[in-house]
């Protein structure tokens, strides 16, 4: 009998029957979460399914993160509907300023390792860094999972991404993610569950989180970290693909407009002037990212004709960054500190670029129009590289600014 992959093991447990890759199954879902970008359609569909009264409200979370604080009467109404629903049903609610769903729900103990979770947002895969099988779904899927506690899946084949060694100073998990975006392309891990093997690596959870986050850009169904103590039990499992990354060889990477997959080493585009710099999002707003940005900007100033926006990924990260003095450093450098949330990542909150402006951001995606203006050019990079650009007024290798 073939060795079960990690995803087969979790799916078999959730179905109460042996599952193999390729099977179509209906599985028990442990947790469901919904953002303010998906809530209107999810709540509509829950009502269509029978009054919107879920069997297990404690397994459902609503998160205000994309549009915070409410920028319009329409959004304020969406937020009110979320508050009302939570009050009426008893489901978990994270309000504005609490942070991004892919960060705050872990901190609040709502998401746990080893569980099967669906979130109505593609970057739900980020929780895979903590060993959760976390899948991004649409509104109808989220509504059905919330009301019935079950959802249909095709059990995916698995792939193995093995990380080795440790990152150089000035480099981050976001650089690993961007490098992989380039080599994987938009469908390099199509429909696969990517197992993250880190037994031979020295990597901080925040950096691994950035790698898991990026798996959404490779077409992966999920990326899940394999615990060291479980590694031996997967001996002999079969993988549809295997990749190795030597972390020590990763240098700062950047994605060119308008695709997260057009990535090159930062040194190839040094000197390009930038007007808007942004540190934040589920891809680059962790405490590790804020530390990286503050390290670059300590005793520095945001360059003239350049502006820097910073949005911590959660209230907890914001609090720790305050205690560590990181917010002081960033604020003194000239940054505008935004509430914890998605910030200007997808054009739903303040921080929209002007036509013709060049943006450098730690966000996950830079598709045309992503930040609310189709005439802006968006580059994606690590918090260190974004901070270096803010200090220099142009794209710069953070190692040059930091040590220069």
């Amino acid at each position: 009998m073939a060795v079960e992959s990690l995803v087969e093991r979790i799916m078999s447990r959730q179905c109460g029957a042996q599952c193999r890759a390729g099977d179509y199954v209906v599985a028990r879902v442990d947790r469901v979460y919904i953002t303010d970008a998906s809530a209107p359609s999810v709540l509509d569909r829950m009502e269509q399914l029978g009054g919107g009264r879920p069997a297990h409200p404690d397994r459902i979370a609503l998160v205000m993160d994309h549009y915070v604080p409410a920028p319009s009467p329409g959004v304020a109404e969406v937020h009110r509907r979320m508050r009302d629903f939570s009050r009426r049903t008893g489901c978990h609610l994270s309000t504005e300023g609490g942070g991004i769903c892919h960060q705050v729900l872990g901190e609040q103990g709502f998401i746990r390792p080893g569980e099967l979770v669906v979130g109505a947002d593609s970057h739900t895969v980020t929780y895979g860094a903590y060993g959760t099988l976390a899948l991004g779904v649409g509104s109808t899927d989220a509504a059905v999972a919330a009301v019935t506690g079950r959802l249909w899946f095709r059990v995916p084949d698995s792939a193995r991404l093995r990380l080795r060694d440790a990152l150089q100073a000035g480099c981050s998990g976001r650089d690993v993610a961007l490098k992989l975006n380039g080599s994987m392309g938009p469908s390099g891990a199509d429909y696969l569950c990517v197992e993250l093997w880190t037994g031979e690596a020295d990597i901080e959870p925040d950096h691994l989180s950035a790698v898991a986050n990026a798996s959404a850009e490779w077409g992966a169904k999920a990326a899940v970290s394999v615990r060291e103590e479980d590694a031996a039990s997967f001996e002999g499992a079969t993988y549809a693909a295997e990749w190795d990354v030597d972390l020590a060889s990763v240098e700062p990477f950047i994605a060119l407009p308008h695709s997260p997959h057009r990535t090159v080493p930062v040194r190839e585009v040094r000197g390009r002037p930038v007007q808007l710099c942004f540190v934040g999002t589920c891809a680059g707003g962790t405490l590790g990212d804020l530390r990286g940005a503050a390290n670059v900007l300590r005793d520095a100033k945001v360059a003239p004709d350049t502006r820097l926006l910073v949005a911590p990924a959660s209230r907890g990260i914001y609090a720790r960054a305050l205690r560590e003095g990181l917010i002081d450093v960033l604020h003194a450098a000239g940054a505008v500190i935004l509430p914890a949330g998605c910030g200007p990542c997808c054009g739903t909150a303040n921080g929209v670029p002007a036509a013709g402006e060049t943006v450098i951001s730690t966000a996950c995606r830079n598709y045309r129009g992503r930040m609310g203006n189709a005439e802006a050019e968006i580059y994606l990079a690590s918090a260190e590289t974004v901070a270096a650009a803010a200090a220099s007024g142009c794209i710069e290798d953070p190692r040059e600014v930091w040590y220069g």
Partner: protein
Amino acid sequence: MNCIADARPGGNVFKYGDDINTDLIIPARYLSRSDPQYLARHCMEDLDPTFFEQVQPEDVIVAGANFGCGSSREHAPVAIKASGVCCVIAESFARIFYRNAINIGLPIIEAPRAVDEIQPGHSIRICIAEGKIHNTSTGARHSAPPFPDFIRDIISAGGLIAHARGRLAQ
């Protein structure tokens, strides 16, 4: 499951390239509303600003690989369906878009050869159940592997909500 109707005689084929992402299909700035007609008015606007003015019922989108990549927003297939497009034919679909389209009842077909052959201006006839595409302008016929039974059940029910309601009622 019936064959869907002919594309409107002389109707439009909207042809797009690879990796058409959900930010292009419906920008996030419109997601605070779920009204399909509102979403349809902004469908494709950052990629093809005249799409909504031109699109007619029974038109077809033909696109390259990885159609619908990016975010999980179900507003993307909802906007396309509400615009009047009766089917999206692509070389391949991104994972979440594929689920969402099935779940909300937007017909989709993966047919790389058809994507190469069909051009704007052609009239085409599509049978989703059988995965058949007939280009009546050129006479070319194309086929795609039919959906697995599990998916056909969801499509037959009219989408996942109707399917789940049927199950909940049992």
